[in-house]
């Protein structure tokens, strides 16, 4: 199995719901707590496993605002695991999920340096590295109804922009979406082979720019066209 997420950049509205649901679930999950430092103060800081950034792509009027949620890509070539000196970081052979054993981490930050996607954040109170677990404590929980055995971010997304599934199965919803919509990996040139895939926005014509068509404007335009300067 190769578990991961597909994120649809066409429909994501940047509501930060996935990040909030992630924080809520994981602060009391297997790697919890996800601590904050000075949360209500002037300069709040804290460990989040999911960050949403907003970009302007293209030039106006053919530009588009794209919201890009990013969490751990559960890379196939996970350099964060290779560089870890304590063995705290590991990639599960059975489903490819990359995890940090909180009892072994010494907080040296080297895995965060090795990660090109900014997926790892040091917990300011615990001093250990925190990262997306793909809600490993949800997706295998047989006490939950079957349709709820999904990561918290996927369940909460109001626009269904996030899809969870097995990329090794060619007939899974994620594999089909990647095929049909031309899914992209981020920074493929570094060779980490990230599992999470992003669906680019669909091509839609830019909003038409209307021209003023009053009689006065029309005459002025005709005169300007007739008399060369």
């Amino acid at each position: 199995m190769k578990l991961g997420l597909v994120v649809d950049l066409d429909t994501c509205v940047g509501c930060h719901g996935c990040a909030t649901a992630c924080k809520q679930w994981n602060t009391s999950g297997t790697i919890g707590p996800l601590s904050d430092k000075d949360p209500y103060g002037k300069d709040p800081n804290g460990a989040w496993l999911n960050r949403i950034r907003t970009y302007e792509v293209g030039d106006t009027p053919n530009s588009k605002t794209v919201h890009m949620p990013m969490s751990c890509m559960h890379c196939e070539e996970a350099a964060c695991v290779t560089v870890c000196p304590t063995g705290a970081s590991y990639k599960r052979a059975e489903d490819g999920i990359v995890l940090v054993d909180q009892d072994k981490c010494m907080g040296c930050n080297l895995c965060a340096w090795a990660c090109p996607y900014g997926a790892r954040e040091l917990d300011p109170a615990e001093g250990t590295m925190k990262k997306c677990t793909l809600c490993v404590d949800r997706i295998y929980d047989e006490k939950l109804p079957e349709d709820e055995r999904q990561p918290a971010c996927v369940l909460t997304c109001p626009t269904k922009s996030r899809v969870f599934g097995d990329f090794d199965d060619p007939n899974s919803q994620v594999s089909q979406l990647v095929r049909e919509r031309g899914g992209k990996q981020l920074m493929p040139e570094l060779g980490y082979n990230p599992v999470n895939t992003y669906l680019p926005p669909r091509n839609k014509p830019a909003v038409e720019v209307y021209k003023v068509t009053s009689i006065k404007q029309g005459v002025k335009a005709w005169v300007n066209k007739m008399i060369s300067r």
Partner: protein
Amino acid sequence: MHPAFSVLVFTVLSGAGYGLILLMVLGHLIGLGELQDRNLLLSGGVLSLLLISIGLLASTLHLANPKNAWRAFSRFKTSWLSREAVFAILFYPFVILYLAGIWFMGAELSVIFAAAGMISAVLALVTLFCTSMIYASLKTIRQWNSALTPVNYLVLGIMSGSLLLLAVQSIVTGSVSAQLQQSAIALLVLGAAVKVIYFFWIGKPSGSTIKTATGFTQASVRLLDQGHSSNGFLNNEFGYTVAANKLLRIRLLMLAVAFVLPLLLLLTANSLLLLAAALITLAGLLAERWLFFAEARHVVRLFHGDQTV
């Protein structure tokens, strides 16, 4: 990259310590006349052990959860940091055996103690190399992901070690060894050359851009919103930015303090000034290590709005 002071102290001091012991053991065992002196070898050995130990202790200060530091020996097969830790600890019994031999026998060592010295010299070199590979192995930071990084660490470590060795030699024996002086001058010139080559090389941006980072390779991409109202871990760790003109000034100052000034002091052949040269080089190398971090640009910066890194 945010320069953590404990890491700067660690790499500079332990680098100098490993360089010192490496050169001293080699010079002693190949029979360099000026180094066949019990007091000199003991002072050099103790100084090197002191520098290395202070450095290693400083390195644990940047850990956020140091109670698990003992686990760092467990991933020798994959992690350069783990290899560094293993070789750094392995170095101690051999160098202590070598120094014990000198303590009891003087400069004329029996085979076992000479072999221990040789092994500690090799381990010093290997540890220094492992330290450099922690940085050189990171594909996320182009300014580090180069063969120039281990060359820099090795040459600058051995260079600062040679200055310390010359200072110790002149203070303990009261005369300046021409051979050690010449090799220190040659290493200073080599170190400066290696550093200048590095500065030219890192001027070129890496292949990753904000376009490859976001996947929109056929359009311009600009950051509108980072998504948080104050800096988080990623901003603090990777967003460290120093103005280009300030970096240039620090580079020039560093080259003057770490290489040019010590070179002039070396020519005087006065033991106090030689000691000053060694200390000034160490201060210059602290600035050099600070630049090594401050000028390194991690690819995560692309997601935070940098067009190139």
